[in-house]
Each structure stands twice: as C-alpha cells, then as structure tokens.
C-alpha cells in the first residue's frame, strides 16, 4: 500500500529486521527487531493513540473537544499529530518533560504543553503534584470540554497490539518463541504476548524495565509498575532490569553496526533480550526465534545521549586552537589594570576587542571597542589571525579570565596583546566610563 488517503492509513504494518548474530552473540538463534519506529509519528505509540481515538474521533470533532493525555513523549507526539489531522486541539499534562527535544517537537506540532511545577524545597503535604489528579480536576471544572484518552488504564491499549502487532509478527516470522519489550504502559507487551502465546505453548514474554535512579525514556522501573492500571505481572515469564548505561551502549550497537537508528529504549530491549537469553542453555536456543520491539528513533534523544555520554559529541580539538595552551602560559598572559588600560588607550593606537556576548556589550562597553564574542573569535583563530601584524591589541571580557587565554594565544603567535585585569567589572568598579548602544537596548 503506497497510496494513502489519510495519515492513519500508514500506522502499523511495520517490518521486522534480522539482528546480526555477532551482535546478539547466540549461535543458531534468530533475533529480530520489530521496527515500530517506522510508524508515521515515529513510535509504537502511534497504534494505541489511534485506537484510543478511532471510535470517538467523529464525536470529538463534532463537540469540538480537546484531547488530553498525560504523556511526556511518544503518545503525546502521536496524539498531537492525530488531533491536528482532524482539526482538534491536543493538550498534554505532565511532570517535567525530561528531554527538551520532545517538548520542542510537541510545540512545533501545535500541542498545548502543561508541565506541573517542580518539587518545592519544603513540599506541601496537601499538594497532590500529580498530573492525573490535575487532569481530573480540569475535566470536572469544565465538563465535556476534554476527551481523556487515558493510556494507562484504557483497555484499547493492549487490545490494538493483540489485534495488529501480534498478527503482523506471526505473519512475517511464523512461530515466535520469545518477545522482549520495554514496559511503559505495559500495553504493547501485554497485547502482543497474548496473541503470540495462543500460537505457541512454549512462548515466553520478557518485560524490560529500567533500573531505579536514572530513567530510560518511556519505560518503568520496578516501583513505577505499581502506577500502571493495565499491568499484569502474570503476563511476563520474567522481568529484566536494564541500566541506562547498557541501554545506551546497545542502542549504539544498533545505530553503528546495524544501520538502525533506534533510541535508548530499543537499546534497552535488545540489552534485556541478550541478558535473558545468555542465562539459558545455549543448545536450548538452537533454531529458536525471538523478537524485540524497536520502539522509536534515536534522533528524539540527542540531548539524552549528550548528557550521559558527552564524549560522543565532543569537538575534535584543533591543534591550532586555544586548547594547546598550558596553564602556565595562560597565567603568564600580560595584564594591565583598568587605569593603565585607560592610559594606554588614550596614548596609543590600540585595537580594543570586547569578547563578551552581544547582550552585555550593547548594555555596557568601553568607548571605541569592537565586539567579537569569544566563541566566534575562537573559531576565527582556528583558521587564522584576524589582526594586522604589529597592531597593538587589548582584549577585555567580563571578569578578566577568559581573555587571558586569547592573550596568551596571540602572544605565542608573536602579537602584542594584553588584557584588562578583572575585566569590564573591574573597569566599572574603578568608576571608569562605560557607554551603551541605546538603539539596541
């Protein structure tokens, strides 16, 4: 089906991808990823979002209701897209949205995002600080205005996986022996497992949960399972706990070795699958098949990766840049007191460069200075020196620290550069004159 009438026609019918044996490391075992990240809004939540709306959408449109859900991720994205495609509004209420890109994409999609305030330093025992309680109050106050999809308790959540995800997997792979999936609302693993179990008596469903402490997007830790209305412990043969580090490690395996741009939650599912399988006797896995759910893409989570694996994003250090300076060289940078600087500026032809950001520069600067913010000057210096040879240079920054590095660097390159000790702050404290760009302030 390559010709779609409506975006909802493109939900589901996702492919499976065979994982290379050298990645899972279990000889003779076939492991597949169910590529839920191929769904139009980017995740497995597209299925439940549509199923929770499908029967009621016409009525919602007629009544002009606002769709509301407590989600800080994929469900919100899918509901926002669906609401938009039907011309109705969507609002999500959540505790802090921990991944900024997710919030930005929701804003881009026109969703209304409400975040509950952060915890107080002295919490008030009478304050519920609970998104679901907040939604309930909101719905009571404005009866009929909202349609709450309620993913955590809605039976349509597991049902749609029973009706679609399970049969799709069976169609593509035949009999499957293991299902591995992150437990978020628990709907996908519950519904899919219920279907696959009917086809294979020895089928086993393994839920992947997160270690307590840090979080893996979209999946729960042991305690948070208690918050789920549809969770059934008996539906899982085992729950495997995966920590954040491992989840990221395995998502990198998928990204870098499989060409599959899957996010940390998919990484957790793969890691959990391998951890579970490795504890079974190898011979019992010969010729067996397992499938894990690759629920969404890596791009949503760049800042998540960045925060936890900053080294993946570090700039290659340019040998020509400031980073080659030693502490001693920086300490030895030539400085002038504010008064000496003023005298010099009055006596000689000196180029005064202010390396602060433009906001600070426009508000207050020394007359006659030019503003080149430090990060831009640093970039320039990587390709060459933007000053005329023999030109005397005086650099100034906020407190006189950052500018020392540039002075040291320029000194090393044979330039006559100095900086104002204590920066603009010291200059001001001496009562020396500053001026402002009025038009800019």
């Amino acid at each position, binding site marked *: 089906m390559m010709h779609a009438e409506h975006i909802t026609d493109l939900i589901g019918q996702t492919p499976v991808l065979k994982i290379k044996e050298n990645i899972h490391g279990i000889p003779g075992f076939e492991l597949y990823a169910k590529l839920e990240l191929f769904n139009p809004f980017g995740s497995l939540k597209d299925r439940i979002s549509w199923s929770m709306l499908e029967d009621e959408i016409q009525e919602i449109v007629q009544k002009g209701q606002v769709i509301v859900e407590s989600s800080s991720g994929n469900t919100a994205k899918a509901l926002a897209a669906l609401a938009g495609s039907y011309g109705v509004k969507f609002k999500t209420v959540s505790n802090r949205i921990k991944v900024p890109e997710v919030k930005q994409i929701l804003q881009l999609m026109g969703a*209304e995002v*409400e975040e509950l*305030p952060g915890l107080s330093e002295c*919490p008030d025992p009478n304050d519920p600080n609970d998104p679901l309680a907040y939604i309930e109050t909101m719905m009571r106050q404005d009866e009929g205005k909202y349609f709450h999809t309620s993913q955590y308790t809605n039976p349509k959540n597991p049902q749609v996986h029973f009706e679609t995800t399970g049969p799709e997997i069976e169609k593509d792979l035949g009999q499957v022996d293991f299902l591995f999936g992150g437990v978020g609302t628990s709907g996908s693993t519950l519904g899919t497992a219920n279907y696959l179990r009917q086809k294979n008596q020895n089928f086993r469903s393994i839920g992947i949960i997160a270690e307590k402490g840090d979080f893996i997007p979209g999946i729960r830790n042991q*305690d948070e399972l208690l918050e789920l209305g549809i969770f059934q412990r008996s539906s899982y043969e085992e729950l495997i706990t995966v920590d954040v580090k491992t989840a990221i490690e395995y998502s990198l395996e998928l990204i870098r070795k499989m060409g599959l741009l899957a996010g940390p939650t998919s990484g957790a599912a793969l890691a959990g699958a391998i951890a579970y399988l490795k504890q079974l006797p190898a011979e019992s896995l010969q010729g067996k098949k397992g499938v894990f759910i690759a629920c969404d893409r890596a791009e949503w989570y760049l800042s998540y990766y960045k925060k936890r694996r900053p080294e993946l994003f570090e700039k290659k250090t340019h040998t020509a840049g400031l980073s080659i300076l030693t502490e001693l060289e920086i300490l030895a940078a030539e400085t002038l007191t504010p008064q000496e600087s003023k005298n010099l500026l009055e006596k000689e032809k000196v180029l005064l460069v202010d390396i602060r950001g433009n906001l600070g520069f426009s508000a207050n600067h020394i007359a006659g200075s030019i503003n080149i913010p430090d990060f831009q000057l640093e970039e320039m210096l990587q390709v060459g020196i933007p000053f005329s040879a023999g030109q005397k240079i005086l650099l100034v920054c906020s*407190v006189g620290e950052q500018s020392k590095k540039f002075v040291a660097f320029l000194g090393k390159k044979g330039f006559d550069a100095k900086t104002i000790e204590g*920066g603009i702050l010291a200059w001001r404290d001496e009562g020396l004159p500053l001026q402002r760009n009025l038009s800019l302030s």
Partner: protein
Amino acid sequence: MIILQPKISEEIQEFLQEKKMVRSLVQAFGSPLNLVFPHQISENLKKFQATMAHEGVRGKVYFAHKTSQSQAFIRTLAISDACIDVASERELKNALSCGMEGKRIEATGPKSPEFLLLAVMHGVLISVDSVFELQQVVELAQKLGKKVAVLLRMSGFDKSGEEILKKESRFGIAVQEFERAIEVLSDGKSFLDFQGLAFHLDSIEVKEKVRAIEQCLELIQRLRTAGFESRFLNIGGGFKVNYLEKQEQWIEFMSQLKEMTMGQRENSIWHNQTFGLRSEKGVLRGSFNSYQFFETQVAEKYLAEILNFHSEKYGQRIADLIAENLLELIIEPGRAMADQCGITVAKVNFIKKSSKGNLLVGVGMKRSDLSFLDQEFFVDPIHISLVENSASNHSAEVFIVGNLCLETDVILKRKIVVKQIPALGDLFVFVNTAGYSMDFNSTASIQQNIAPKIVIHKLGEEFCFVLDENYYPTL
C-alpha cells in the same frame, strides 16, 4: 525494615566517639540538646564561593538566617566575607549583635514597619517585596534623609510562552506590576540606591530557575532604558542537601513505601501513613510529598548546574550572561550552609508497648524539636547505649515517640531498627539537624524543654564546648 543510614561528617563522627562527653553534656544541659559545629559553616561557604569563581561569576553568599538561630554560626560568618539574609526584626538585631555590619545584611520576606525602619537605619539592603513596600521605603528614606539600597524581588514569571503551571506566590512583585514599580523607583530616585533584582522560586527545578534568570535579564534591560543600572541579581536559595550515606537505601525505602501503600507489604509506618501516595483501584496514585533525603545534585553542585545551563534564549551559559551584564550574583543558601553543622541528642525516658503491641521508645524531646513544618525526618538516629551488659542483645524494631501527652507526638513515623533494645538513659542522636530541624518549629508545649544550643569546637586535639551565646570564633 529499611535502614536509612545518616551521612556524618568526619568531625561529628569523631566527636560521637566521646560517649562520656556526650552523656555529660545531656546531663548538664538536659534533653533534647542541640550541638552545633560552627567551623563547618565556613567550609560550606567556601564551596559556594569556589564554585562562583570557577564558573566565572562574581558573587556574594547571604546565609539565610531563618535556617538556624545559632549565634555561633553568625559570629563565624561575620569574621569571613559572607553576608546574611534576615527575615525578621529579631534576626536583624541578632545579626547586628553578632558582628555583621548593616551593609552586609539583606532584609527579605514579610516586613513589619519596625523591621523596615531598623533595617533602613542600619543601611541594610532591602529586598523589596511589593510596590507598597517600595513606597514605604521611599517615605522612610525621605524622612530620615538617607539613601536606601534596594533590590526588587520579582515573581510570577513566564506569563507568555511555554506553559509551566505555577502555584500562586505570596511573595515578590508580580511581573505585571513591574511598570508601576519603575514609576515608584523613578519618583523616589534621589532616596534610593537601586541595586538590582531578586527572586526566590519555590521549586528545585533548574529549568524554572534558568527561565526566571532569563526573564530578569529582560527586566534589567527595561530598567536600563529607564535609567536604572543593576549591579546584582539575587537568585534566592533552595540549594539541596543530602542526608543519607547510601542511595540504595533511599531507593529501597521508596519502593517499600509504595508497596506498603498498595498493601503488598506490611505497613511499618505509624498509623499507616503514606506521605502523599495512595492506592486507587489497585493503581498507585499521588506523589511522595516530602524532602528527598538522598540527593546527588547538592549545594554548590546545584549552583554549578544553574550557572552552566546553556540559555536557549540568549545562546550563552547563565554564568556568562550574568558576568557580561556586569551583574554580580547573590545567593541565599540556608540549609546547604548548615549542612553537617549540627546534631540533636535526646535521652531515653521510657520503653513501652503500643495498644497494637509495637515497641515504643520514649525520648526527652517532642516531634517539633526535630520536624520542620511537621515534615518527616527520614534519617535513622544513632543509638548510643550507655549501659554495659544491657539486658537484651538482640535487635528490635521500634517507634521513637516524644514527651508530649499527644497521640501525634511521634518523633519518627518510620519504624526503625535498633541493634539492642534501648535502656533508660541511653541516647539517640539525630544527625544533620542544624538546617531547619533545631529551632524553626520548636515550642515549649506543656513546659517541656526547648533544646539549648551548645557549640562543639576543637582546641588542639580536644573537643571543647561552650554555650552558643558565649561562643566567639578564634581569629
């Protein structure tokens, strides 16, 4: 039963080895007894200062006096380069009498006319809480022929743009009233020494603080066009503290509390309380409404996180934005400054059983001697056994109850484990109580003692003690 092992500084650990001294102190001064270690507060100060220097901002630390009434703390800070934030007339008097000069004092919070007058007389920096108060200050300054240093305390940020739901705040000048405040500032210009803006958010969320800082920068721009140059940006307090030695214990306790709420585990909390959690149709609802006693992003680390936050709006680090705008930072840490600066000791008065057969250990203190705004103190006390060959050598689970004839006077609502059943005269030590847990809520109900404060300090290798009001730090 979960152990919540307290984090204890080396100095206090060493002191607690001196069992005889601890016992003598309780005998001499009664139970409960607050012991303070003022040396530590200067260490905590240095950490904040080092962070500001490292991140490239100039700034001042104003200790929030409300955290503790100890004079020793203030005398210790007075000989350093710290400042102090006072929120009442008596706090102001105390700060002055402990050696803080008026220019190192900031008056915050709700102010009586008397408090305001005294503050103005001493040249205190006034963090102005309302337009009404600003008018009061102008009037006072006019009558006294003084120029008064003021910060405008702002609140109600973020009216446009992203939605973060906010609780109504009783403090500060609402952003909508800002223009009115500028008018009053302009009218009173010759009597005011305008210093900048202040805020304090009732939230530990870094993002919200960053947004407030960004908005203050906008307001500072607006003030510039009206002819007011800001020198300071005061971002308030709320710097977190870690009370516990082990994160696993806190995580495990939270798990057990949730299981208790769901009825999956026998409840070991007094009267089955669940601290904001509840079970609804088999699903866990609500949220844990207490201080997080285990924290990693504490004090100066939390400050560093704010300062290193990259402002999307301006494309720069918060620290750089502050410095470049020629602003100096003011912070008002309280709890974080008092971290590891004190302990509370109480004597065992009786052992008995509750009507349901729980073992109760009665100590010579009341819940309000420890509990800040009736919040639970989720840290195990240290049991100091003084009796040799105690009758029982087996561990037990007990509730610690207080000395008021009130059902609610239960010191710790969590049942705790003691290695042996306490005997009469044994001591319980509550660790890290100097921040809000010593005197904020303490009362003399039914004429029970209010704990005196005793300073513990070292002279050479030896621990010495002195009444808090008599302590002066050695220079």
